[in-house]
């Protein structure tokens, strides 16, 4: 019986946990941590089981890799639906892994009260999981807002004028993007009369030309909103500032945030743009935007002076690569793109976690620059009292939390090298496999025929930006580990070191099992590019025998 309710667990569990954590006083630190961890553990387990179910391993429960859960028991085109397929199950698992790693890391003193952390963190998970699971556009909006609201709070953690300023930019941009999202949703509803993603597909073809034009406008506005979240080129100037201002575990958890935008583009794009004249226009636009994003991210990486900014730009570059690949609109490119998606999420997580430790190699005089609120605290403004800003510098390293690990510099160096290999896409780490598969699929996409110039651009872009990223990362690594100036060996705790190491090891495992992983991604891509199956299964779900409590009177 539980198994039928499984799709709703990734939303309900963190929601309940977050609500409990809001009410629980700060003194119960152990209890709070236990709740937070058991919630995330449950999410990892639920995501893993969903992933297993979506591979058709148990055909009695779900057929053809799509599971539908109707909240309230209303029959599909009308009620609120959760839909799990391979792609969303994969996203859920990635989210849960990244979040768990960042939560373990945050235990090393980053999550201390008085500012709320755990509850916001759980609400972030509600938003992320919900956005991946939902089957209609309006709930996608709602879950986007949930995750954004939580991310605003998490970004502000530690306050300081730099964080507050960047959070202001971040909130303003995202609020404007949310309004675009709403306008797009309203236009789609106004023309087509439904917001259910599966229902859209069948009804688009029935639209009369003037209505069709309006619908296309709505879809395009929706696309702009997604591209803002994904950090696509002309819309991404907010991203490096806000991501590099966030504390390390929060930035690591944000690794999934830009990818939600990419996921939405992928999901809605494949649903609407299959055999469509619109795809012929939108594909190249998406490709060139993605290509520009890839270039902009790489140039930003070359220009960045701080490791944290550099990692933020690498997030942009990876988004760009994904968008450009999706823009080509070739089915053969989707599985390697998904592989790259998974690796880049893990990479970003590990790298952001690492920046929290490498920041401490700088000596105190230099560190003052990264702690802007030291001077500001002396201002006698009521704001400080109101927002509890007068907490002691929360991230000073003098406090001993947990056990330290030996050979700290060697560990940092090794992890840094792994992250460099991951970002730049060199063997033996999985982003090499992903990029290699991408290149090979791109070059083989027209056997005997002429490859379109976009493919050549993509191939050149992947290789060129890989080299540029390697140069940028090597340069900053030399400055960080070998360069002149006073350096000190930071005291690294197991709690901080272990998550980074585990994520890097996971990447290694992914590259060792890349064969079976690739088969999974191929199946996921197949079901993505056959939206009729998705539509048929979702819409054929009867309302009467729903496993929900709403109908059992």
């Amino acid at each position, binding site marked *: 019986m539980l198994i039928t309710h499984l799709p709703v667990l990734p939303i309900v569990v963190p929601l309940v946990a977050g609500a409990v954590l809001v009410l629980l006083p700060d003194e119960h630190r152990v209890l709070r941590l236990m709740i937070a961890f058991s919630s995330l553990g449950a999410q990892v387990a639920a995501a893993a089981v969903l992933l297993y179910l979506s591979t058709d391993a148990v055909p009695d429960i779900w057929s053809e890799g799509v599971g539908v859960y109707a909240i309230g028991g209303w029959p599909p085109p009308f009620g609120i639906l959760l839909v799990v397929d391979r792609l969303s199950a994969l996203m859920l698992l990635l989210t849960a892994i990244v979040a768990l790693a960042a939560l373990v890391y945050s235990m090393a003193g980053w999550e201390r009260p008085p500012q709320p952390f755990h509850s916001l963190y759980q609400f972030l998970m509600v938003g992320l999981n919900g956005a991946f699971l939902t089957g209609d556009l309006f709930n996608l909006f709602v879950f986007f*807002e949930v995750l954004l609201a939580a991310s605003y*709070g998490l970004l502000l953690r530690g306050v300081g004028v730099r964080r*507050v300023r960047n959070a*202001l930019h971040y909130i303003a941009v995202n*609020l*404007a993007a949310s*309004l675009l999202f709403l306008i797009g949703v309203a236009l789609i509803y106004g023309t087509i009369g439904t917001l259910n993603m599966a229902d859209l597909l069948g009804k688009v073809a029935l639209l009369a030309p003037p209505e069709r034009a309006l619908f296309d406008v709505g879809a395009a506005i929706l696309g702009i909103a997604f591209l803002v979240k994904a950090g696509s080129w002309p819309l991404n100037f907010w991203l490096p500032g806000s991501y590099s201002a966030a504390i390390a575990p929060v930035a690591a958890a944000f690794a999934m945030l830009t990818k939600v935008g990419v996921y939405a583009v992928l999901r809605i794009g494949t649903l609407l743009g299959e055999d469509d004249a619109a795809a012929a226009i939108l594909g190249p636009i998406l490709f060139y935007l993605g290509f520009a994003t890839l270039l902009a991210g790489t140039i930003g990486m070359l220009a960045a002076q701080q490791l944290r900014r550099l990692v933020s730009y690498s997030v942009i570059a990876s988004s760009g690569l994904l968008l450009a690949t999706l823009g080509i609109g070739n089915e053969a490119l989707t599985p390697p793109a998904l592989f790259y998606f998974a690796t880049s999420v893990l990479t970003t997580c590990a790298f952001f976690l690492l920046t929290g430790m490498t920041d401490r190699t700088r000596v105190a005089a230099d560190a003052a620059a990264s702690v802007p609120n030291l001077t500001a605290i002396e201002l006698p*403004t009521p704001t400080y009292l109101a927002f509890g800003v007068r907490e002691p510098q929360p991230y000073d390293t003098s406090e001993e939390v947990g056990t330290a690990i030996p050979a700290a510099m060697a560990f940092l160096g090794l992890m840094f090298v792994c992250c460099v290999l991951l970002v730049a896409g060199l063997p033996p780490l999985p982003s090499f496999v992903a990029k290699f598969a991408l290149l090979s699929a791109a070059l083989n996409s027209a056997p005997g025929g002429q490859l379109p110039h976009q493919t050549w651009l993509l191939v050149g872009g992947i290789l060129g930006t890989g080299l540029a990223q390697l140069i940028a990362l090597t340069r900053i690594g030399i400055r960080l580990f070998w360069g002149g100036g006073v350096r000190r060996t930071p005291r690294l705790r197991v709690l901080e070191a272990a998550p980074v190491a585990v994520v890097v090891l996971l990447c290694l495992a992914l590259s060792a099992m890349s064969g079976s992983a690739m088969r999974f991604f191929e199946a996921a891509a197949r079901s993505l590019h056959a939206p009729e199956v998705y539509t048929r299964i979702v819409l054929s779900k009867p309302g009467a025998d729903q496993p929900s409590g709403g109908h059992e009177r």
Partner: protein
Amino acid sequence: MEIVYALAIGIVAGAGVWLLLRPRTFQVIIGLSLLSYATNLFIFGMGRITLHRPPIIGDEGVTDPALYADPVPQALVLTAIVIGFATTALFLVVLIALRGLAGTDHVDGREPDS
């Protein structure tokens, strides 16, 4: 009536966009509020403007769907208002915090010429 409605949305949205691009935080928040009003009106308008038609079907049963207003945009607007209200309140808090920390109401936390 449609043209008046559309013009009203256009004027409010235009004013909102202009304010959003201004350098002072207070102007930005008013701009965002105006934009969200315009968006809410727009969503409502997408449910078609009708008069004297209930959105809820009563006990009498369904006779003709054309006799009823579309309830879905109204529900969407309600959700959007709640979410917009909450995020605007949060933005206000950040705005005041920035004013307190930076000592200026410029969106960048410092005056452009200083």
